[in-house]
């Protein structure tokens, strides 16, 4: 068996890459995908912890995370498409109309 710390370490690396992606990229679609990467890394850590605890509760939680992610992606993509229709460009730097 691969010990759980390996999984958590991998999850930490993936999470960090996701964070850097959110900070570095300008395309909202890529930022969105980086967020998905972070969610995914968190899921992996959850499953690893659940495996150590020997229960399936963590898996149920991850399942819920997936469902929420599906809903979130649908809404998020709809928003991005709506913004694209409005502005004809996609860059988060230009989306500052909501700023105070």
């Amino acid at each position, binding site marked *: 068996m691969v010990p759980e*710390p390996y999984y958590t370490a991998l999850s930490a690396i993936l999470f960090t890459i996701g964070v850097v992606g959110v900070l570095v990229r300008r395309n909202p*679609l890529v930022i969105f995908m980086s967020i*998905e*990467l972070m969610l995914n890394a968190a899921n992996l850590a959850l499953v690893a912890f659940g495996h*150590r*605890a020997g229960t399936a509760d963590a*898996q149920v939680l991850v399942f819920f995370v*997936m469902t929420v992610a599906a809903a979130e992606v649908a809404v998020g993509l709809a928003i991005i498409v709506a913004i694209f229709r*409005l502005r004809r460009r996609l860059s988060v730097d230009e989306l500052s109309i909501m700023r105070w």
Partner: protein
Amino acid sequence: MNHLVFFAVAVVAVVSALGLVLRRNPIHGALFLVVNLGCVAVLYLLLGAEFLALAQVIIYAGAIMVLFVFAIMVLIPGKEETGPDPLRSQRLLALPLGALLLFEIGLILSSSVFVAAPPSRAPAGPAAAGGIQSVGRLLLGDYLFPFEVTSVLLLAALVGVLALAKRKAG
């Protein structure tokens, strides 16, 4: 054997995650993310979570990412992020910040809470804990209420998306 699979998959996962962040073309990024999700599904299998692995492939790779690729194809923002970046200095800060975050997570994970020996009650074994039956029992037993609430959430998302998409452009 398991170690070998783990390391191979982990390397692919990290490389594909880097590919998502580094590639200019969002389509390539999306496909790298699909690879990454597939890798995580394999890791779920290694952890004995068979149902989650399949759900990961079906929901994430099969549905969510198809939606992403679809959206990217419709918008075709292939020429984005080519102009000069006014916030370049701020963006470069992301790297030290990321390193700091990784260091912090590492500190937390190596703290006593997580390194402590596994709980005294013996793990019931991956087959019992990760099998589709146990997940199903929990999902429709202990977690029935959140399960039902999820359906309301999905409905709300459905209605919201329809409201957003129905609006005519301009």
